[in-house]
């Protein structure tokens, strides 16, 4: 059995660089710039940030759909990159399962629902023999709250929410220890979203599964996750206990994200002057406003993470060496920033 004190997943300095362009103009795009992430047993960690910030790249590296350019990661204490260099072992693929954003694209339309559950059960040897397979399929359907009769249906006969439940059941078929859920509710109709979130939370609690929940929706991250990590331009900028982090956001980027969540309860409209200031702090940091435990000196290669509180956990990346704002996918273009300064 695995030791419960070792994290399920632990990445160290994970980097991913993509090369784009043809043979004449080659450019390197850094999608992930050295990421350290620990996920404990049964823990739900939310990864938030705007699109293009590298959230999905991180998940794809962990799922081994992408080969990280640099860095290591341990899964239940085992150095995965060392034991299987090129591609994941079958054992690893069973232990780490992914749930994708688009339930309309992730189920092959020519197969009945039963097929999607049967395949992983067979391939990973979780059940064999007709009777055992049938029983396992029914058990999975019950877990995600769908009737057995649906096994005979085709994907197009199901609603988005039902399809996403099938995708979850398929992931559960192989008894995973870590789920990577990449915006699992953003394509669903709003009225069924909360149901899918509740289901994922229950499954994690009942079966001790850990989850990396990727989203740009801070409200749902707050609802679901134990811990939140904020990502900007391929790097972590702030992290900690979900409630603590959202109550006392330290990094200007986190505060910018929070200010962007529509909240009918907010009394005053968010101040544009303050927002312009936050933008400036994110894009052109001039000083590091945080103090706290810093084990080593800070540099652009190895910025210090300041610990704001121990319990509940809360840390923030050094404000001076911010991730490069010209990284791709950063929606905060300086041009808009300058205009707002003029307007202000």
């Amino acid at each position: 059995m695995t030791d419960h004190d070792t994290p399920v997943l632990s990445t160290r300095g994970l980097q991913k660089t993509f090369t784009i362009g043809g043979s004449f103009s080659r450019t390197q795009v850094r999608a992930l710039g050295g990421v350290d992430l620990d996920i404990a047993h049964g823990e739900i960690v939310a990864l938030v940030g705007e699109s293009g910030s590298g959230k999905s790249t991180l998940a794809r590296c962990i799922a081994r759909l992408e080969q990280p350019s640099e860095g290591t990661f341990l899964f239940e204490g085992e150095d995965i990159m060392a034991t299987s260099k090129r591609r994941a072992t079958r054992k690893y693929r069973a232990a780490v399962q992914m749930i994708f954003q688009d339930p309309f694209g992730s189920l092959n339309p020519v197969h009945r629902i039963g097929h999607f559950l049967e395949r992983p059960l067979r391939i990973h040897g979780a059940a064999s023999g007709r009777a055992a397979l049938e029983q396992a399929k029914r058990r999975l359907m019950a877990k995600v709250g769908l009737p057995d009769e649906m096994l005979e249906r085709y994907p197009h006969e199901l609603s988005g929410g039902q399809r996403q439940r099938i995708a979850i059941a398929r992931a559960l078929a192989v008894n995973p220890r870590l789920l990577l859920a990449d915006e699992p509710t953003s394509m669903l109709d709003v009225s069924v979203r909360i149901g899918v979130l509740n289901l994922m939370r229950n499954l994690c609690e009942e079966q001790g599964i850990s989850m990396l929940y990727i989203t740009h929706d801070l409200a749902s991250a707050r609802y679901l996750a134990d811990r939140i990590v904020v990502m900007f331009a391929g790097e972590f900028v702030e992290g900690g206990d979900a409630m603590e982090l959202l109550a006392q956001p330290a990094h200007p980027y986190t505060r910018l994200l929070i200010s962007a969540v529509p909240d009918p309860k907010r009394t005053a409209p968010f101040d544009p002057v303050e927002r312009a200031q936050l933008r400036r702090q994110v894009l052109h940091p001039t000083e590091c406003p945080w103090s706290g435990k810093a084990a080593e000196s800070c540099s652009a290669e190895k910025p210090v993470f300041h610990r704001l509180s121990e319990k509940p956990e809360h840390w923030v990346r050094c404000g001076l060496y911010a991730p490069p704002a010209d990284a791709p996918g950063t929606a905060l273009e300086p041009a808009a920033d300058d205009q707002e300064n003029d307007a202000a």
Partner: protein
Amino acid sequence: MSTPLLEVDDLSVEYVTEARTVRAVDRVTFSIAEREVFGLAGESGCGKSTIANAILRLLRDPAVIAGGSIRFAGTDVLALSPDELRDFRWRQVAMVFQSAMNSLNPVMTIGDQIADIYTTHERVSKKTAMVRAGELLDLVGIPRDRLRSYPHQLSGGMRQRVVIAMATALRPPLLIMDEPTTALDVVVQQEIMAQIKDLQQELGFAILFITHDISLMVELSDRMAIMYAGRFVETAPAKEIFDAPRHPYTRALMNAFPPMAGPRTRLQGLGEGVRFRDIPDLEAVTPNHWVAPSTDDNLITEAIS
């Protein structure tokens, strides 16, 4: 009370095919006053965009208006001739689409595209049109030198600002916005919303605002309607719907957005397979708050056979 700007009365729209006829909008009645922001919320496929397209007479085969009337400032929109329609669209009612930022012509500069509106609709000289195009960009906080830029040189948020500016170019009294921020990133989304609010206060147009994001809508709208399967299930002032939703579907929608403050409590959405059917006409609970009565009869849990 003066005549409202827009009156939609008992409107039904059907999609007619040989196999079957689908009623996308079913006997919908509402009105929008001058300078009012009216929000229309509901999930995909409930008929929100069909209403918007019907108001602008943009429906195409197989969609047909099966009944009801649309009046704009007293004029019957459904009776307009093609010539009158040309003038009605953009000058009276302008629309901002969800993918609007992709609707800019990629081979024309921003300035030429905006100037086009003035040379076509107001028959002014190219030079005057360009000056006014620059003024329009000022309005949404984009530097004038962007007039010479092509759409691909602008970010998504800036393109959306340009499209919104273009919609207001002829100062129409009503703007229809169909999910104007859905395709944008969260940070940019909030900025565009603030921009829309500022413009609305400055220019004083009314807005029909369509979205599935209720919390966004409550922030912006004066009054809102919740739509389900082609029917209105509730309409009231936005704050009132937010504070005291009455229809079970409205409550489910409100629940779909966890709060950003306060303790973490478990929320309950609409159950999987729960459907409403035969939604009755709205009844007034207070003079401003109308709800379709809901009983167990019209709430069904879809049995899967």
